[in-house]
């Protein structure tokens, strides 16, 4: 310190000259600032651009989800074509991670450290997001609307920079519980679930929803492993337990088996089928439409194959968008509705940010969405967040299978409200 001071005194003249240069620089910067008010603060944000990072499996086992990244990119092309957001164009940078967590880490670091994105949006997959969860929170990068159904993404206390999007498994379990409590007076519940985090998440939400009654109402719990060839014996056990409500938490292959087996052995409970397996083509058709009749499940997006929405404005806008901006996309794929809706949610947040696109403000605005309706959400379902609620969509509607298609019924269930 001292040595430095002596040197400085000896070079007083240079110091003053340097000070003048500094002052001139500050002045020049001062002049430059108004034209791009936030460029100095947030990486990836200039007066004309917002850079957004994204990872998605375009290749590998999970590449069926690749369409979500493509539809989001197409939607931002549309937004940019219409003038962008507050005059800024969206520069959407998306990389393939092949659903491999180490690749996700590498790609996300590339996005953050090299491409200098302002934030991450809708990165897809539970294991892939788990791998970057700590990193993005340590770097304080907004990690918005992640595309996974696990429950751990809405934990603002420990991970204030990560936010979920779709209704999570616990939320859905909650909704079935409320339906049972209200509509089945002498419920005796049997549960079949996959013995992993996915299955346990559902069951936890379901039990929380039943509350104190859970112990009394649930008469049997059965599990299976994804390596099991069939679940026939579990179904027989559940029937013999005398259950009249069947909560079916299985992936498509086993869901179809469960539906078929219960019909075979003449077990006719109220069948609650998790959203994971409510695809008509992949589950109900192979299980047999007659066997699937009266099964109950949940929905939150408008199914583009459902003729109910034929004349709906939201559906028609989506269809027009798909034809113009993403003509190669599959019109029957719910992923294209999912990505479209998530992108609209993000555009809402960015508009709400105004000209303050600091990372703090992006996070703050994402956590203050009030009653937002989006055109491809089921009527009545609204997006809501708060500084303590990082679960944007928590409402779903029940539907019953009429032998040909799902028919929505009843009110919108809101798991956010107790």
């Amino acid at each position, binding site marked *: 310190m001292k040595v430095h001071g002596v040197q400085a005194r000896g070079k007083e003249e240079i110091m003053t000259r340097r000070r003048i240069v500094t002052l001139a620089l500050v002045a020049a910067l001062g002049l430059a600032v108004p034209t791009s008010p936030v460029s100095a603060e947030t990486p990836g944000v200039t007066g004309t651009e917002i850079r957004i990072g994204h990872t998605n499996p375009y290749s590998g086992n999970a590449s069926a989800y690749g369409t979500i990244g493509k539809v989001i990119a197409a939607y931002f092309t549309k937004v940019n074509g219409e003038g962008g957001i507050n005059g800024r164009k969206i520069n959407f940078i998306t990389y393939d991670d092949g659903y*491999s967590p180490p690749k996700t880490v590498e790609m996300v670091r590339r996005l953050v450290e090299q491409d200098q994105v302002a934030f991450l949006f809708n990165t897809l997959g539970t294991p892939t997001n788990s791998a970057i969860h*700590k990193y993005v929170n340590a770097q304080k990068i907004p990690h918005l609307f992640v595309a996974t159904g696990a429950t751990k993404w809405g934990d603002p206390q420990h991970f204030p920079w990560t936010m979920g999007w779709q209704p999570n498994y616990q939320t859905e379990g909650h909704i079935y519980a409320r339906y049972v409590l209200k509509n089945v007076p002498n419920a005796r519940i049997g549960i079949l679930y996959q013995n992993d985090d996915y299955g346990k998440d559902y069951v936890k939400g379901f039990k929380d929803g039943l509350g104190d009654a859970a112990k009394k109402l649930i008469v049997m719990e059965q599990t299976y492993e994804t390596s099991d060839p069939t679940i026939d014996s579990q179904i027989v056990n559940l029937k013999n337990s005398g259950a009249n409500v069947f909560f079916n938490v299985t992936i498509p292959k086993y869901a179809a088996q469960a539906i078929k087996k219960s019909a075979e052995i003449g077990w006719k409970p109220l069948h609650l089928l998790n959203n994971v397996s409510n695809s008509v083509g992949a589950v109900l058709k192979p299980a047999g439409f007659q066997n699937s009749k009266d099964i109950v499940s949940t929905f939150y997006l408008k199914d583009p194959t459902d003729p109910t929405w034929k004349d709906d404005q939201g559906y028609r806008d989506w269809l027009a968008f798909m034809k113009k901006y993403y003509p190669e996309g599959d019109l029957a794929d719910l992923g294209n509705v999912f990505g479209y809706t998530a992108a609209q949610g993000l555009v809402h947040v960015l508009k709400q940010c105004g000209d303050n696109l600091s990372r703090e403000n992006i996070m703050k605005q994402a956590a203050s969405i009030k009653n937002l309706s989006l055109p491809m959400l089921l009527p009545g379902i609204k997006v809501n967040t708060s500084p303590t609620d990082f679960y944007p969509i928590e409402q779903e509607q029940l539907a019953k299978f009429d032998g040909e298609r799902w028919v929505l019924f009843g009110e919108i269930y809101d798991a956010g409200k107790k």
Partner: protein
Amino acid sequence: MTGARAWERALVVAALALACALPFALSGFRAFQFTQVGIYAIALLGLNILTGYNGQISLGHGAFYAIGAYTTAIMLDKWNVPYGLTIPVAGLVCLVAGFLFGIPALRLEGLYLALATFALALAVPQILKYFEHWTGGSQGIVLSRPEAPAGLTLTPDQWLYFMTLGVLVVLFVLSANLLRGRTGRAIVAIRDNPIAAQAMGVNTALYKSLTFGVSAAYTGVAGALSAVAVAFVAPDTFNVFLSITLLVGIVVGGLASISGAIFGALFIQFVPNWAQDISKAAPWAIYGIFLIVFMYTMPRGIAGSLKLVLNRLARASGGAGGPV
């Protein structure tokens, strides 16, 4: 011949100097990428000992990579063992696993062995999900990235890079010694003519199983390092594609060549990224083109071509040096 040796030695020294300077010249993200190159290089060297030198084809080395990674992850997660200690343990576990797998594999040759190891690659991700209590199931295990030890003013990225480089250098020197000596000659003899090798008194069964074990141990150490560097393990990481990628790496890098492991690692780390930069729509088609071009222009791998160039250089400089 001695000229080529000298060139080779000079190149190794230059490469090491470059490797040491690298993390200071690059961003954290790039250092992380080169750490991954180092990790792949260790895994590739392991596979090359088995496939390149010993002639046993494995389509299942991703499985040993997974076992190494999970050994480290479980020790860190359940017992808080210092990460430096978990890496040799992971190597040992894989040594035993590889040796045991090598015994039944003795009955299988060529493509049949390839299929048996392929089955291993298919089975491991599911087995990992089965032991959920230990492995965290499909959600995997989240770890913490290690900081540089106190006293070293390195960023975590630089520290991980140097740790990997250190392990890599040690393992490369060990394998060079192993392969240049008596054992190495026996391993290669088994590949070239097993009957002749046996007639010469080589215990082929023992050598083949041991080679399998050593190969698995190298790959396991790589897996352990990757768990520490990525700070996360999940079954989806260790799918069949990883095993195939490793095989691509040794063939492109150069079969039966130690330096080939590094070239192969650079290829499998960076070429998929370049392919993606060139075309978002069909990155794997571009990757395929790269692969075909490499195989056509360098049929003996990058290391093989480099050796050819070195020999030519040595001859040229030897000729020029003569008159002086």
